[in-house]
């Protein structure tokens, strides 16, 4: 990686430089004051940088070299499914006829993209065992919010506005309680039992007429399949509640088992996880929501429908929760996911779940002697180790282990999550990693465990090979600097 202190683009600025030449204005330029009241014009010029094109390219290329992606190496980040992002997907997503399509141009001129969206929805419905859905949500959390709005709309239609409570397991992603709360539900935490699964006893305490439903991830964030799922879904449905499936972990079971068959009423998927679209440093993602027949009338508008030979965006849905996003969501992400589905096909998809689970179980078995494995059982696509022992005996934390991994050029696992495991290291290898990559990871993890015992300071000092060392988080939070200021220019 490159030098330590990298200038900001603003610090490269020199008055008079330009990084782009526009075509000359080819219409008469009237006096500004004859077109607009002077009071509508800005007074203070925005302090954007003044740099040439080569400055732009070198600057952002230098930044890219201070960043780590799946294309550089192993990325076993639990619950994030950092699988390989196929390059054909990028190539087809860049087609001019996809890129230049305007969201409000005549439907007759957008049939290619509409057909793609329709077939993508059909295939996603088939993969999840649901009836139909929407591609509008921009990300998983947006999908969750959509799902909670669907719950609300359904209960309102049934005249059951007293259903105010949504159950969320203590192992759930943070977005689950946040989304349920945002949609106006009261969040009630359900405990995990000694197996690491939703406790049926804890669940049963909440089965009453105030129950709206439950949000579950299956396999859960410990990487464990919720074996009692049929009993849970029966119990929830028996009291008139609904089940929400957080699809963050679908990669474990894709092509093998379907949330719809487990009894879920709403499912969200993360196309940027299971369906191979790149994470982009935090987005754009896509969080399609699929529903059972019961919830079909409430889906957001517009709906993508097939009519005769053509495709159409339908807005006439009287019971719909309404519009979720300005247009139709992150369409470029849908294009990539569809290309992935075409390449994988039904056999390939089934293979995804199998190999993702094989990779995880292989790593789990090879690492459980060096680190604690709080839930030692068959896992699905991920598993959670604990550095609790290291911390108690040697004062070395999960964070130290993670930071040391950086020095070996490996992205660390998710740390300190799920919350129910102390000093958690949540590892998800995905199916696209080879035996050799996994073996190297095992070797590095064992080296780090040894270092923890022999020279803990090595871990405390880590990382030392990255462009910067450990960063002062407290300073950043106490005196937040969230933008550059011109006067700070040296």
């Amino acid at each position, binding site marked *: 990686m490159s030098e330590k202190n990298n200038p900001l683009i603003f610090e490269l600025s020199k008055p008079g430089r330009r990084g782009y030449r526009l075509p000359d204005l080819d219409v008469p330029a009237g006096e500004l004051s004859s077109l607009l009241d002077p009071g509508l014009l*800005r007074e203070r010029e925005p302090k954007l940088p003044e740099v040439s094109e080569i400055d732009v390219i070198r600057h952002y290329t230098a930044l890219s070299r201070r960043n780590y992606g799946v294309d550089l190496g192993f990325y076993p980040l639990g619950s994030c499914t950092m699988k390989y992002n196929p390059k054909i997907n990028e190539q087809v997503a860049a087609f001019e006829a996809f890129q230049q399509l*305007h969201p409000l141009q005549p439907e*007759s*001129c957008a049939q290619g993209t509409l057909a793609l969206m329709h077939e993508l929805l059909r295939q996603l419905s088939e993969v999840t065992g649901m009836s139909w859905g929407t591609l509008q949500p921009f990300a998983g959390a*947006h999908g969750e919010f959509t799902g909670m709005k669907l719950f609300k709309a359904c209960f309102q239609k049934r005249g059951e506005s007293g259903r105010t409570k949504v159950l969320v397991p203590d192992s759930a992603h943070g977005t689950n*309680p946040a989304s349920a709360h945002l949609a106006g539900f009261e969040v009630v935490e359900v405990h995990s039992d000694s197996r690491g699964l939703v406790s049926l006893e804890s669940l049963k305490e909440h089965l009453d007429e105030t129950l709206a439903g439950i949000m579950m991830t299956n396999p859960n964030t410990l990487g464990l399949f919720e074996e009692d799922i049929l009993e849970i879904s029966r119990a929830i449905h028996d009291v008139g509640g609904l089940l929400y499936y957080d699809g963050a972990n679908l990669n474990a079971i894709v092509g093998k*088992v379907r949330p719809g068959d487990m009894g879920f009423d709403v499912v969200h998927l993360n196309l940027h996880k299971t369906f191979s679209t790149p994470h982009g440093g935090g987005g754009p993602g896509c969080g399609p929501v699929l529903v059972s027949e019961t919830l079909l009338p409430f889906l957001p508008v517009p709906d993508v429908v097939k009519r005769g030979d053509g495709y159409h965006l339908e807005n006439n849905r009287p019971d719909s929760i309404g519009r979720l996003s300005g247009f139709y969501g992150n369409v470029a992400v849908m294009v990539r996911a569809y290309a992935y589905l075409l390449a994988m096909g039904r056999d390939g998809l089934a293979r995804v779940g199998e190999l993702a689970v094989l990779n995880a179980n292989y790593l789990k078995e090879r690492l459980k002697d060096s680190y604690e494995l709080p839930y030692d059982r068959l896992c699905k696509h991920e598993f959670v180790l604990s550095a609790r022992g290291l911390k108690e005996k040697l004062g070395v934390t999960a964070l130290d282990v993670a930071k040391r991994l950086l020095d070996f050029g490996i992205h660390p696992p998710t740390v300190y999550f799920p919350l129910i495991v102390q000093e958690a290291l949540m590892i998800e290898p995905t199916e696209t990693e080879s035996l050799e990559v996994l073996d190297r990871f095992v070797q590095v993890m064992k080296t780090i465990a040894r270092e923890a015992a022999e020279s803990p300071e090595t871990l405390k000092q880590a990382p030392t090979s990255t462009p910067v060392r450990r960063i002062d988080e407290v*300073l950043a939070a106490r005196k937040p600097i969230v*933008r550059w200021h011109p006067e700070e220019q040296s």
Partner: protein
Amino acid sequence: MIAYLPHTEEDIKTMLVAAGINDIEQLFADIPRELVLSKPLEIPEGLSEFEVYRRMQALAAGNRVEPVSFLGCGSYQHIIPSAVAHVLSRSEFSTSYTPYQAEMSQGILQGIFEFQTMICELTGMEVANASLYDGHTAASEAAVLALNSVRHSDTILYSSTLHPFTRQVLKTHFSNLPVHLEEVPADNGTTDLEQLVERLRPGVAGVVLQSPNNLGYIEDLSGLADRVHENGSLLIVSANPLSLGLLKSPGEWGADIAVGDTQPLGLPSYFGGPSVGYITATEKLLRKMPGRIAGQSLDREGTRAFLLTLQAREQHIKRERATSNICSNQALAALATTVYLASLGRRGIREVAEQNLHKAHYLHGRLLKETPVLALHNRQFFNEFPVVLPKKVAEVLSGMEESGFFAGVELHCLDPLMPEEALLIAVTERRTREEMDRYVEAMKEALS
């Protein structure tokens, strides 16, 4: 054989043995038998890369993008420097996750920090976040921010001149919640500010306006911020950031929160997404902002370094008490905007905004002078304007399309209160004088 899966048969055997598992099926032994799929999914067989390419090419051929486009209304066709796609293709950025491991993510973190700075500069505000989904959902997030910031508030006033989809998204967001959304009517194409001020009362958290508004008109917000602040409420202004190269910024109007969509800054229309929602605000709202925020700090050796900061606001820490549920945002698309703004620079952004203004006024002038088209209102506009045709828009569009033009957006389709004769025409710096001259001729013919 699937190229994305590296396992050989031998690898699989080795791994099964090491894991103490007999066969692949045993990996799923914890799943109730009746749940395991017994028949293949109704999805076609997988294809080779070349076949995928051909299939996608065939789909793309079902789209028509050749007509010269005068479509806008929230998504615009602007010139995008080559540098943008080039930087976005760096897979060190595109294949990275959210930069929680800051030491190996300095590139994207610094990029976000630069994005935040540029968006603050354009909007004239003090703080920004890393991005939201789009401009429409950003308006909802701003409303939530106002409700969380103004004590004992339960009402959001919004102008009927917000983009119709922004209004719809707001309604979806707050449906079934104890929040009153109150629409303030327009007077002759822009917000009726007298009515708005009359509606200010205790309980109003914020006032949401858009400029240029849904008809392309520039809202004159002189004196409004004072009235809103006197009531203890917040002023939220949604603005097309490209227009801010020229027009008074939300900060200069006295806004507390600015939102909008950076699609005009370096992103293709892509049937509506991805774009980037932005949100900027006054410093005192920083700790209540939604979403991720990149901050500057120091590493152990005193070197300047960037990281995601103020995470205590966020869902993965605060869970149901978070300021928002947002997790993934539009990071890579925000990087496109950053590279766009770096390329255009201080003077380029002004120039592109002026070109939009002049070109839109050129077409507007010719249409009004030489065709039977009328202005919908007499208001000042930036790069799009509504006209009234002597017949229904629906009867004109296909003729214009045959002449090689997407003539504009039929406003009635988006907002049934709009007349069926109203057409919204957007002109960006991409349109040439020659294209506009032909457009005028085609319009004459279509209306004859």
